[in-house]
């Protein structure tokens, strides 16, 4: 699971009012190189919750993202490269996503997060 996906996921449990962002606990992760597409990055940037991306990247040991980010930084190649790396090249293989409100853990195995809710959570 890449951080792009993590940035979009919100906890779906019944009654939870603020299920975003899910805390990322990573036991195993890998880096897979992928071509940088500046157009895509510029297009997706407005949709990204920066603080969530920052925290998730740090959980994977990548601390090179700036604390704050705004659209003007997208013209910088250096920023684009770091953004690209954090968003698309880090893959979480084993770990868990934790609901910020209930503490419920959604395990990640073989890169696949298990988001299935139990009967009483629907």
């Amino acid at each position, binding site marked *: *699971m890449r951080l792009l*996906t993590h940035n979009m*996921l*919100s906890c779906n449990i019944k009654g939870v009012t603020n299920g975003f962002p899910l805390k990322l606990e990573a036991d195993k992760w890998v880096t897979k190189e992928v071509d940088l597409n500046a157009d895509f990055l510029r297009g997706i940037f407005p949709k990204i919750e920066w603080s969530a991306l920052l925290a998730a990247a740090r959980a994977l040991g990548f601390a090179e993202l700036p604390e704050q980010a705004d659209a003007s930084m997208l013209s910088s190649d250096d920023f684009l490269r770091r953004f690209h790396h954090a968003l698309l090249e880090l893959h979480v293989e084993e770990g868990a996503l934790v609901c910020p409100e209930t503490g419920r853990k959604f395990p990640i195995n073989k890169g696949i997060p*298990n988001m299935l*809710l139990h009967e009483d959570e*629907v």
Partner: protein
Amino acid sequence: MPRPELQAPPEIFYNDSEARKYTTSSRIIEIQARISERALELLNLPNDGVPKLLLDIGCGSGLSGETLSENGHHWIGYDISQSMLDIAVEREVEGDVLLGDMGQGLGLRPGVVDGAISISAVQWLCYADKSSHEPRMRLKAFFGSLYRCLARGARAVLQLYAENMNQSEMIMTYAMRAGFSGGVVVDWPHSSKARKEYLVLTCGPASLQTALPKGKGEDGEMCSDEDDSDDDENQTVGVYERNRPRKKLKVNKKGKSKGKQWVLKKKEQMRRKGNDVPPDSKYTARKRKAYF
């Protein structure tokens, strides 16, 4: 053999062996690829060369997702079958896949997705597998969460195999209730084998942008032979026009219609011949109503 939806819930039906069978059948691969291409076409994404973030609902082993990747897009896939997803990972699909139940809601932030496709999956929502499952609640949760996570003006194209009209209507009803506008595009409506239904939904009110394209095969095009081979055995779907065509005027070889003058002339000819002809009255050759 009854349809898969009547045999077992999807996470059980698509077990390891079925998942492998599904993914290695060249016929299925070809069909899924074609349907995915068509769904992507119906998504009507802007042709600006910028990769989009799409959803693949019921992504299975990643056959449809591959079409999205081939077209340069990023995607997030959902499936309820661990076996199918394991194969997707094995095949190293480029999208991220999640183990999830679409009937529980998609759990995505509002307005983040540029489009969604679903190939042969949404009809599974109509079957209650557990006593706590209520298809209507699940359809509501699915369409509600889908609507929320799509960006304004984005589309969802859901190719599905509804068992009957009731199912199609139920699915459509819940889509509309969630706020979607749109309709159904049917490709090859007269071929029972090749026929495919695509629910094309737009996030937001109906407008010029949401106008649906024509389904394939409506112009009398023939679909490919292999798909049509079993056509004669099965019933085809009839399409009935609400307005019956008006009764055509009788036209002779010269292109003139046979009107009152012609009838009167003919009757006169017959009388001269000596035939027994009813007298002419105000009712002779009067225009009759279309439905007799």
